[in-house]
């Protein structure tokens, strides 16, 4: 069983978050190695690793780093605003192995010429914030942070910033606005953050899980990471399993297994011996999968070619007792609530989607409602294609369309039954 991210907390559950345990298990040796390397050689190792971003967009980390503009100062911002419904992996990394993340931050900052890094933790995560702050305090005391990192002469400060309860701040430019003390509204791109980010300076924004891989990559080399898993899905990936599975939880896996194995072997199958109805393969933004996808592979590119996405790695399983109209409404309600309000198609469209689904679920639906839902969706995401077309600054609006197209594709009869039977046929 290949382990990169969870090995320490699995072997040492009582103190995996402490500096003493981290150092005793080889921690901060990769940092010493990195400080002896040329920064561009570290970037080259991360490029060679073919590590793809774990926040949702799967963009190659090394390529993103390569876009960083030369101006000074530059910033590294860690996106710990984990809020995609179904996702709880970064919380575990922050709470149980914060030094692994912190060492990744220090190595990455050195590689990128950064002297001030930020960790943006969602406001509802005080315990994870306390754990990463405690790790930072320990690292300052031990000389891994501050004016002279591990005696190298390199200086780095790290600041933890607490969010205020807004999913949209997981979008990197909204996050930067929030960190600047503004409303968390996404910026029009370009310019991308690597050119004009925090305080209009070159900035790299990376996810917690992505950066937690960096110490291992530096220790073992990019080629070793690139040797794990299928092409395009290298390394290990944390999957958050939830919903109607027998064994919910976070699982660190080498990708390439089938969905059948993921749900029935790793997830332990469906609770109460029920039948599987559908699952969300990559967080609330992702179009749903159904039985016909059970034998397709779980890789970043296979999920995309089957017209959904791996996203944050959040798998939400729904059994036969689930009302799909209610499930779609719950996902749409989320996006409606979290819309920042800048773009009309998203602000108004998600509200309308919620209203129509609400009346459908309540048994007050009309024959035209499915067409109406699709028409509203087409105004948010023209063509209803995948990857989605956009009429908005960021992908939040189009994300609200995923449950609608999924309903139309796989559960049309159930929607129609809601209209004709005056409510849910399962009730």
């Amino acid at each position, binding site marked *: 069983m290949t382990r990169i991210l969870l090995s320490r*907390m699995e072997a040492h*559950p*009582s*103190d*995996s*978050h402490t500096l003493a345990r981290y150092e005793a298990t080889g921690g901060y040796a990769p940092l010493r190695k990195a400080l002896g390397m040329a920064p561009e050689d570290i970037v080259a190792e991360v490029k060679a690793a073919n590590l793809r971003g774990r926040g949702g967009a799967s963009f190659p980390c090394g390529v993103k780093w390569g876009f960083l503009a030369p101006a000074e100062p530059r910033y590294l911002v860690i996106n710990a605003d*984990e*809020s*995609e*419904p*179904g*996702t*709880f992996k*970064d*919380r575990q990394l922050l*709470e*149980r192995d914060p030094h692994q993340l912190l060492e990744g931050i220090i190595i990455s900052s050195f590689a990128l010429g950064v002297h*001030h890094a930020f960790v943006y933790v*969602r*406001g*509802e*995560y*005080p*315990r994870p914030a*306390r754990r990463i*702050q405690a790790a930072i305090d320990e690292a300052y005391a031990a000389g891994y942070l501050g004016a002279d990192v591990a005696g190298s002469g390199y200086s780095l400060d790290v*600041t*933890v*910033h*607490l*969010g*205020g*309860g*807004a*999913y949209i701040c997981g979008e990197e430019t909204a996050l930067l606005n*929030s*960190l*600047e*003390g*503004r*409303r*968390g509204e996404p910026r029009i791109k370009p310019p991308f953050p690597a050119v004009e980010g925090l305080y209009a300076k070159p900035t790299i924004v990376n996810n917690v899980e992505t950066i937690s891989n960096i110490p291992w990559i530096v220790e073992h080399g990019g080629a070793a990471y690139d040797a794990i898993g299928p092409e395009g899905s290298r390394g290990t990936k944390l999957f*958050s399993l*939830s*919903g*109607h599975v027998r064994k*919910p*939880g*976070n699982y660190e896996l080498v990708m390439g297994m089938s969905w059948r194995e993921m749900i029935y072997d790793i997830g332990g199958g469906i609770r109460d011996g029920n039948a599987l109805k559908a699952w*969300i393969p990559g967080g*609330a933004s992702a179009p749903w999968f159904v039985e016909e996808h059970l034998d397709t592979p779980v890789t970043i590119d296979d999920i995309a070619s089957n017209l959904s996405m791996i996203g944050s790695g959040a798998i*939400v399983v729904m059994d036969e007792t*689930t009302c799909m109209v*209610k*499930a779609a409404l*719950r*996902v749409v309600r*989320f996006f409606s*609530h979290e819309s*920042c309000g800048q773009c009309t198609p998203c602000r108004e469209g998600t509200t309308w989607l919620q209203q129509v689904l609400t009346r459908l679920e309540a048994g007050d639906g009309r024959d035209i409602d499915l067409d109406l839902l699709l028409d509203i969706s087409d105004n948010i995401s023209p063509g209803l294609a995948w990857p989605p077309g956009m009429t908005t600054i960021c992908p939040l609006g189009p994300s609200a369309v995923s449950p609608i197209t999924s309903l139309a594709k796989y559960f049309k009869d159930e929607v129609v039954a809601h209209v004709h039977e005056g409510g849910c046929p399962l009730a």
Partner: protein
Amino acid sequence: MTWSRATETRAAAILARYPEKRSAVMPLLYLAMAEEGGDLTEDGMRRVAELTGLSAAQVQAVASFYTMYKRDGVGRYLVSVCTSISCMLCGGDEVLDAVADETGVPDGETGEDGLFSVEHVECIGACGGAPAVQVNYELVEGVTPEQARSLCRWLAEQRPETVVGDDLQERFGGQRSFDWGPEEAEGATGPVPAFGPLGTTGERS
């Protein structure tokens, strides 16, 4: 206006954490809430504006964007019940009903005696231990409706100064998203996330 000397000292420390003063707006808003027992008042926002060099309107624009800045007042115990997709699938709606019924405070409101505020919230990252509840942002996972009732009764009877997640989980929780590891004594002293640099963290009382 100014805050107490201790709070002003803490505000200065927060400002020093950032290259630009404006970035301190969000943590200072939490500090303003903690100073007023959880409420974000106009005076509080004005002081944040003075400290960051912004106008009061600019600060209010930020505060109104984020759900955790409670400008309409908040109870001593903010009970947040997750009803997002994973928690809904595992009974979060029934937990919310139980909390509202037991406290007598409907979803989205604060009780007249100011003891409880009750709200449904979107995903709080506890899906593997669904359904999940937070009290003053301290988490408890795997909560049944009956346990949720017990939790509310316990808060009303004990009125703890500090709400500690590990303590709540031990008393009222069930299935967790993952092994939490060793117990932690720190918790929240009010309806503001408990985080040392904000001065909102208290030891178990």
